[in-house]
């Protein structure tokens, strides 16, 4: 795709200029953090470099949806909502971790491993990625496979972990974060 047409691409969700700007800011903060030198010369170098990097990388961060009618910016979530989600995930992570440690360190193992399946449909591919990543990050559950139809196959270590996931709190949070409809069904049996 031609670089000029990116700004006029109607299939991109949201405004490309805002995306470019926020990506540039992110790159600049990264530059400042790594250089640690606030002399004018280096700050100007940083500004130029981050602008060039943002311009080159922006097309790579556009993800098409399943039927190819829309393109989503990979980092296009509200930072504050994402921070709230991260805090919630951190809390879940600590609680689930304590459960798993309890189950594995006791003299007798209290585990009941099994594969659970559910469907989570979303238009935005980043929602799928974030859900799969969050499931794997939470102790007691590991995403084994995600199909293009949105079928998730998850290996759960304990009964509690499987129930917690199938209750659907995490997919709901992810759907809310991306402003999508909540489409979640549990699949029974093999």
């Amino acid at each position, binding site marked *: 795709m031609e670089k000029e047409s990116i700004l006029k691409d109607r299939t991109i969700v949201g405004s490309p200029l805002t995306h470019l700007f926020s990506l540039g800011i992110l790159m600049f903060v990264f530059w400042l953090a790594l250089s640690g030198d606030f002399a004018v010369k280096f700050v100007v170098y940083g500004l130029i470099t981050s602008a060039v990097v943002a311009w080159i990388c922006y097309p790579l961060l556009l993800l098409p949806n399943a039927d190819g009618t829309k393109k989503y910016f990979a980092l296009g979530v509200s930072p504050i909502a994402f921070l709230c989600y991260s805090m919630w995930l951190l809390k879940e992570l600590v609680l689930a971790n304590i459960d*798993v440690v309890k189950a*594995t360190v006791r003299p007798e193992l209290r*585990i009941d491993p099994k594969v659970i399946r559910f469907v989570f449909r979303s238009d935005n591919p980043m929602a799928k990625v974030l859900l799969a990543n969050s499931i794997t*990050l939470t102790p007691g559950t*590991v995403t*084994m496979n995600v199909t293009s139809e949105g079928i998730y*196959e998850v290996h759960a270590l304990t009964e509690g972990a499987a129930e917690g996931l199938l209750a659907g709190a995490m997919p709901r949070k992810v759907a809310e974060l991306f402003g999508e409809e909540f489409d979640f069904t549990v699949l029974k049996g093999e």
Partner: protein
Amino acid sequence: MIADITLREFIAGLFLAGGAFFLLASAIGMLRLPDFYCRLHASGNSETLGVMLSFMGLVIYEGLTLTSLKMIMIFLLIFLGNPIGTHILSKAAYKSGHHVWTLEEDAKEEKNHADLPH
């Protein structure tokens, strides 16, 4: 001397001790759990909290400097990369048809084993 430790160092030490505990629990799980997928839980997941607590301890010890900001960046990278690695391993095992161990099958197998003539 105990009196030489400041409050900040004490809190940092608590976090490091917590991190060490979860890393130890992860190692114990690695040794005890029965099959590949269960061991992935131990190695991939329990470790995340252990590493997280250790890095928090180091950041508290260091205070608000550029070094601690870099430590937070390293931690965020682990936070993103660790689940991806775990997922790729389990996906590879699943696609190549690695067997999933369950409680029922284990009970069945043990029964068959007991029925065998000695």
